């Protein structure tokens, strides 16, 4: 079988893809699970869970390494087209990957993350306070975007009041296509935050606080060297990017779903035991990180097809998460689905570092919304999906109305600092 036999019309950045991905992926899984498209310079489209996991776990034959060519253009990495800016550890292969990942893992364990729950609950309460008397909320800008971003800034040790300056361009950078003008503008805006983090990295070396930026700024390798500026910024960029947009996308989708399914809201409120299973099911069904990419390093056979060095493989997590072989009624949300071997957090060495933080922010905000504005209704004709959802499946705007309620005023000073007053 050659590429010509497996040729399909497919572009994960197209508007059509946003409308048709469920059917397209179902068709590919059944008929052409290793397909080839000529879009964006050509890439393999891998849609079955078995093949996606095999590739994600295979760091011998596949690489994620990202680099700049002689013209300064970014190559390789985990997106098509390649996004600018190095992410560490995401754009690093083993064995170097291991050093960074082990450095960061202790900051993201379930136990470490659990200590931040009280803060997440406080921020969620303040966010709802800011809208509760009006009966109207834009669920992305006022709830789903600020909470994960504020929690990420808290961990990094950056001023929480600047959250908008980090959150907005982080979203813009994922819902625009690399190479286009809107994307370039978003990347420019992101540089403000990078400059702030760069200054903090410098100021805290030798003068550490208890935050993650202080920790990495003062980390020394076994040989005694500090991490380089490029390494430090790669880590900051990774943590900000990973924290600021992904959970937001999941929340946007889930709020829309819950608004249409009052029985699901009731079940989540009345049966707290179902919540952790529901969270996994939402991750499976909506797959906020819809896909990733691996680049072929050595000739390798996947699902009977030979892949050649230099070719790129688009691994469709969203498709894998609907694979009929693993998920009965895969196109239906079952809140208590189990077992649920979804790969909403990816697989292999690059599996999501912040998964426990994502679960925490997600569950705190859903609980807060169900508790305080339980009758919220999405204004569907005003909701706007990302212009491209092939990489991050999220929403630009999700407005809703509800019966007004009362503020809790748990921390007026923090509310003022975060500029949440209405």
């Amino acid at each position, binding site marked *: 079988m050659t590429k010509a036999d497996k040729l399909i019309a497919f572009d994960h950045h197209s508007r059509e893809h946003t409308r048709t991905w469920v059917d397209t992926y179902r068709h590919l899984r059944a008929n052409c699970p290793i397909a080839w498209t000529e879009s964006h310079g050509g890439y393999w489209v891998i849609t079955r869970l078995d093949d996606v*996991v095999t590739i994600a*776990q295979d760091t011998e034959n596949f690489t994620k390494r990202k680099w700049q060519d002689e013209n300064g253009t970014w190559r390789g990495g985990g997106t098509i087209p390649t996004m600018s800016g190095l992410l560490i550890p995401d754009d690093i292969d083993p064995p170097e990957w291991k050093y960074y990942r*082990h450095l960061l*893992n*202790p900051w*993201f*364990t*379930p*136990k*470490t993350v659990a200590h931040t729950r009280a803060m997440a609950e406080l921020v969620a309460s303040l966010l709802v306070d800011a809208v509760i008397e009006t009966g109207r909320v834009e669920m992305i800008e006022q709830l789903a975007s600020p909470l994960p971003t504020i929690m990420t800034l808290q961990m990094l040790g950056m001023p929480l009041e600047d959250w908008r300056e980090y959150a907005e361009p982080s979203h813009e950078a994922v819902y625009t296509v690399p190479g286009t003008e809107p994307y370039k503008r978003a990347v420019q805006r992101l540089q403000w935050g990078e400059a702030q983090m760069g200054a903090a990295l410098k100021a805290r070396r030798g003068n550490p606080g208890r935050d993650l930026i202080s920790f990495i700024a003062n980390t020394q390798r076994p040989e005694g060297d500090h991490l380089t500026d490029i390494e430090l910024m790669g880590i900051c960029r990774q943590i900000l990017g990973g924290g600021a947009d992904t959970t937001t996308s999941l929340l946007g989708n889930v709020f829309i779903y819950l608004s249409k399914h009052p029985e699901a809201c009731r079940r989540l409120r009345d049966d707290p035991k179902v919540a*952790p*299973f529901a969270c*996994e099911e939402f991750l499976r069904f909506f797959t906020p990180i819809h896909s990733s990419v691996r680049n072929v390093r050595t000739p390798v056979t996947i699902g009977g097809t030979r892949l050649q060095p230099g070719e790129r493989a688009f691994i469709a997590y969203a498709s894998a998460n609907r694979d009929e072989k693993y998920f009965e009624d895969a196109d239906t949300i079952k809140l208590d689905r*189990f*077992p*649920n*071997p*979804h*790969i909403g957090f990816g*697989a*292999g060495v690059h*599996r999501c570092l912040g998964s*426990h933080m994502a679960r925490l922010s997600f569950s705190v905000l859903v609980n807060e919304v169900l508790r305080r504005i339980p009758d919220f209704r999405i204004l569907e004709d005003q909701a706007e999906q990302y212009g491209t959802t092939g990489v991050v499946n999220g929403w630009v705007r999700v407005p809703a109305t509800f019966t007004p309620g009362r503020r809790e005023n748990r921390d007026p000073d923090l509310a003022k600092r975060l500029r949440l007053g209405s």
Partner: protein
Amino acid sequence: MCVLACPEVFLVNDEDGHAYVASEQVEKKFEEAFRLAAKSCPERAIQIVEE
């Protein structure tokens, strides 16, 4: 996911956040939960060896 399925057998390492088995021998009463845990692992990392 395995911890969710069978917390009696799988624990989480506080240093790196990875799950591990507390004991390689699984008690009979946890057998079914353990099988579900194996089925729920997206990394296919859990192998069952029958004795």
